[in-house]
């Protein structure tokens, strides 16, 4: 099979301006993936499926990743012009100072597609797409029109991560019920507090059971006071 670099070159030849990036995998598997631009992703997907050499006809898996906002602290060397008195004369002098800067890299939701070719017996090719942020720019193009097997898995990602797939034929929740508001697989999901009965609690569960009991005791105390 072609390497990721060759696939990237093939995509760029077939779909001009596709803007594909390679996301390297530093692990021993070295399973690098291709980051697609959402605007051109469907065209790229159609090319990957229909290209006779790649013939990626089987979408085996779609999954989501939630990346929280990252605070990055980095040291930057800054050149500044400082006025200093040298030999009794005021002169502007360039000085290099090290500065610590903090910046917040906004989080995003990521969708990962694993492609195989049944015809050519090769794979996987890993595609990724990223949303603009985690709150209001969560739209990505649906791959259901390219690979039909994406339908239920995209519904699952919509349900559990909150990615909205544009062009999906039937985008409804699949595991949780209609009217459920949260996205349980997001890292900032708060689970409902039903820790009133934990017969063998330990660690995290014990902490949450104790917190539940403290809340209940406080509520009971308030009720008694009134």
């Amino acid at each position, binding site marked *: 099979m072609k390497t990721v670099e060759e696939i990237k070159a093939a995509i760029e030849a077939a779909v001009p301006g596709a803007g594909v990036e390679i996301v390297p995998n530093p692990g021993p598997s070295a399973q690098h993936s291709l980051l697609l631009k959402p605007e051109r992703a469907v065209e790229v997907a159609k090319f990957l499926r229909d290209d006779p050499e790649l013939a990626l006809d089987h979408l085996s898996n779609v999954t989501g990743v939630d990346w929280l906002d990252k605070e990055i602290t980095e040291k930057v060397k800054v050149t500044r012009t400082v006025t200093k008195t040298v030999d009794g004369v005021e002169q502007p002098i360039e000085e290099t100072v090290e500065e610590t800067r903090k910046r917040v890299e906004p989080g995003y939701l990521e969708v990962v597609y694993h492609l195989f070719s049944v015809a050519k017996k090769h794979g996987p090719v890993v595609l990724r797409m990223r949303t603009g942020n985690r709150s209001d720019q969560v739209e990505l193009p649906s791959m259901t029109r390219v690979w039909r097997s994406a339908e239920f898995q995209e519904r699952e990602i919509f349900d559990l991560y909150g990615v909205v797939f544009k062009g999906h034929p039937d985008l409804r929740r699949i595991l949780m*019920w209609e*009217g459920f508001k949260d996205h349980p697989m997001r890292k900032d999901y708060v689970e*409902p507090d039903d820790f*009133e*009965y934990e017969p063998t*609690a330990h660690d995290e*569960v014990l902490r949450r059971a104790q917190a539940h009991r403290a809340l209940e005791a406080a509520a009971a105390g308030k009720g008694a006071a009134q």
Partner: protein
Amino acid sequence: MAVDEKLKIELGKQGVLVTTLQELYNWGRRSSVWPMNFGLACCAIEMIATTMARYDIARFGAEVFRPSPRQADMMIISGTVTKKMAPQVVRLYNQMGEPRYVIAMGACAISGGPFKQGYNVLKGIDRYIPVDVHIPGCPPRPEALLEAFITLQKKIDAQPLTGEGRPRFLDAEAPGEFPVPDQGQHDLEPPSNRSVWPVPITLGNRE
């Protein structure tokens, strides 16, 4: 009003059958408990195995699985009850006619099991409906389900028809319908029916 056991045996030798209405009635009730034909997860596979020739639940009069709650007497909660499924399970239980019994089969049905801390798993069906027999196991073997069924039969046999401890359908005060939980924005509402399930006292929550 029990008949003396020795006298009963003696009369039996003479060809005279002596019994009480309660015994006869309970014998009839326990010998034809028809389960409802539904399964929730992998425990259902063991339940199906129990009905087949090797384990043969027909020996106990419970082989007729009814696909309608109206015709069923026993609900075997065989598997994980998700929060999405829980209202439907309670609704099916409400639709069953009295007398009705519930066996909670397997770790998931009695407590949530290995998925207990999952966001969509109910921590035991006894939070919403009264359970007669709990079977631990993941999944329990067919022998365990048969044992649970025999336990249920013994329970039925021991029930008096009047007074304290009589079955629910002979008690006008007993609840006939159990509230179906709503699927709220974050969780089931209410999270449990406290009249059915008072929070069990453990070493941790004892005051």
